[in-house]
């Protein structure tokens, strides 16, 4: 097998710096938005005592689970011993770390008292899944760094597989944990479901891979590095499978919800009657994030066209954001059912009078904050690939390792 050569991303300085400039200005604007929110308080956002987590959480959760998904590519390479994926590993690790940083930053900056971050880092309530998540996130970071080291440094090579396996499990735990943040909320009807955790896992696979593919294609194109069809179609097929799985889980989720009879009204509301949430569910989640990308991926002609593949990835990402918007915000907007069998006529606190959902409309600062997180993730990635050797010199078919089927057989042969 040929040695894979990694090289720093060497796009022309003018292009590189303008890319950084754009990202930095997005981050700058987001920083201003944060300063404004922090100075005034959260009343300048669309969030309220009814919808307490808004757009920043949509972005944060999206970035965090994507981080886990982005690492999936590396895992496939090491843990499942698919040599074809090995050259993709380093970028996968970097992207995972970057997305996590972006996501956590959004999460932290949306806190009511972000200056107490150090409190959050030093005092834990171990019964809180959220506190566990803090460990999961910092642990993830450490493991990804170790993983990257084991991929990049020759001294780390012997540990690569072990770290890879740990990373895989940690990653699953992390997405499960993130899903469980919602899944454990018995109070809210839409969340209270164990299936949310596995659903988040497959979502993470799909969104993380979509982001990964876009970043890979973009960076390779800018630097005139070749990507062979073999690997690209592999990734594309994988994306197809993940999108299908998300679909499957969506279905099961709604079915289990319907199974508990008391949830008819919730499901009905969401699917038919939920206004923006219904729209986002059908158009964003199902159509844009599912059917259209699947159509592209399995289309005999478009499915082989790089621009179409990139478009499919983009749509999956848009669909992902929509689905998280529906999951996170829609579920809060739907009133808590405190008095079964009773209709609330009046309330001093928006308790779903006559079953009405709470209103929420995102405000500009919170949206900017979300974009800031994305920009941070991309910035970290852009700087990372520039200063360190993350990107393989070529992914052209002829330099790639043989398909794992072949080498798998070889390995079996060797063992025998």
């Amino acid at each position, binding site marked *: 097998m040929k040695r894979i050569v990694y090289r720093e991303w060497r796009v022309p300085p003018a292009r590189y710096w303008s890319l950084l400039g754009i990202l930095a200005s997005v981050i700058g604007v987001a920083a201003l938005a944060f300063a404004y929110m922090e100075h005034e308080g959260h009343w300048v956002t669309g969030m309220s*005592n009814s919808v307490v*987590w808004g757009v920043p959480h949509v972005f944060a959760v999206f970035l965090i689970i994507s981080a886990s998904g982005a690492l999936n590519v590396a895992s496939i390479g090491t843990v499942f011993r698919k040599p074809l994926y090995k050259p993709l590993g380093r970028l996968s690790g970097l992207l995972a770390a970057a997305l996590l940083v972006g996501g956590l930053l959004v999460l932290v900056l949306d806190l*009511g008292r972000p200056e*107490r971050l150090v409190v*959050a880092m030093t005092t834990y309530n171990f019964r809180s899944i959220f506190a566990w998540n803090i460990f999961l996130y910092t642990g993830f970071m450490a493991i990804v760094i170790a993983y990257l080291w084991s991929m990049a440094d020759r001294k780390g090579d012997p540990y690569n597989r072990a770290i890879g396996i740990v990373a895989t499990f940690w990653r699953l735990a992390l997405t499960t944990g993130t899903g469980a943040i919602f899944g*454990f909320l018995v*109070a809210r009807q839409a969340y209270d479901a164990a299936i949310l955790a596995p659903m988040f896992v497959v979502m993470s696979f799909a969104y993380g891979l979509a982001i990964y593919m876009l970043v890979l294609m973009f960076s390779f194109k800018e630097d005139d590095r070749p990507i062979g069809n073999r690997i690209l179609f592999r990734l594309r097929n994988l994306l197809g499978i993940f999108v299908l799985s998300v679909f499957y889980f969506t279905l099961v989720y709604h079915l289990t919800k319907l199974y508990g009879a008391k949830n008819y009204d919730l499901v009905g509301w969401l699917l038919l009657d939920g206004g923006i949430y219904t729209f986002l569910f059908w158009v964003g989640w199902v159509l844009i994030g599912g059917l259209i990308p699947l159509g592209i991926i399995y289309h005999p002609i478009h499915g082989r066209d790089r621009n179409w593949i990139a478009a499919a990835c983009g749509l999956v990402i848009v669909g992902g954001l929509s689905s998280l918007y529906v999951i996170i915000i829609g579920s809060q907007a739907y009133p808590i059912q405190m008095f079964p069998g009773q209709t*609330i006529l009046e309330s001093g*606190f928006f308790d779903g009078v006559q079953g009405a959902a709470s209103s929420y409309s995102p405000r500009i600062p919170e949206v900017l904050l979300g974009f800031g997180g994305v920009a941070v993730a991309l910035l970290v990635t852009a700087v990372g690939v520039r200063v360190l050797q993350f990107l393989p010199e070529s992914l052209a078919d002829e330099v790639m390792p043989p398909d794992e089927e072949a080498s798998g057989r070889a390995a079996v042969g060797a063992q025998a």
Partner: protein
Amino acid sequence: MTDHHESNTGPAECGPSQPDRRTFMATAAGVTAALVAPGVIMHSVAGPRTEAVTSDVRWGLLVDTAKCADGCSACIEACDRENGLDLQTQPSGAQPTRWENQKSVWIRKVKLQDNQTGRVTNLPLMCQHCEHPPCVDVCPTGASFKRADGIVLVDRHTCIGCRYCMMACPYKARSFVHEVMSNQLTRVPRGKGCVESCTLCVHRRDYGEESTACVDACQAAGHEAIIFGDLKDPESPIRMRLAELASRQIREDLALNTGVRYAGF
């Protein structure tokens, strides 16, 4: 300060008489605590508490919805005054309808109609001081906690404002302080970026007062719909009433064993 207070006194029915009475209470409980204490609630320490609270008591409320009057809001206003919630002002530039949903509410009135019978019930709803509070379970820093005497509080020195507890509370009992505060009261510090909720008037507990602001107000308004007391003490008035009335917890199915009970619906 005085003028401020006047400007905030609520509807005439319970307003004016309040301050004086409370001043009296405060002085009475403080300066001559020893004189007042006997005969009141056995477990409460008279005067500023010197020993840490214990689980010998569990404070709770019983709401007799049958007595809760339609159109009355005395308890709400009393709570607002007691805890300085009436000092909240809409930030200039805030959109009024959204602000309504952003300002802190510790106790609210809810009016229900039974879908089958059509019976209408009024009740005040606040933090239920659950024995197994989901808000405490989820709080990452441990800022939400249950005091030994059953009161569920937020330690606002360690609350990071993540609002996870609000997601977790089945009663929507908590509020997030969305705006910068000023003019707080000495006994109830509160400020931007933290989550808060009914404290069962914890300062009154610690200074040995016998009741809560809402209870007092309801009584003063002549309804006596809320009773405060120690759920662990079989002799306490609240236990006596509980024995008399059929009561329930809201969302009993969650098995949170709430400290606030409702009778009559």
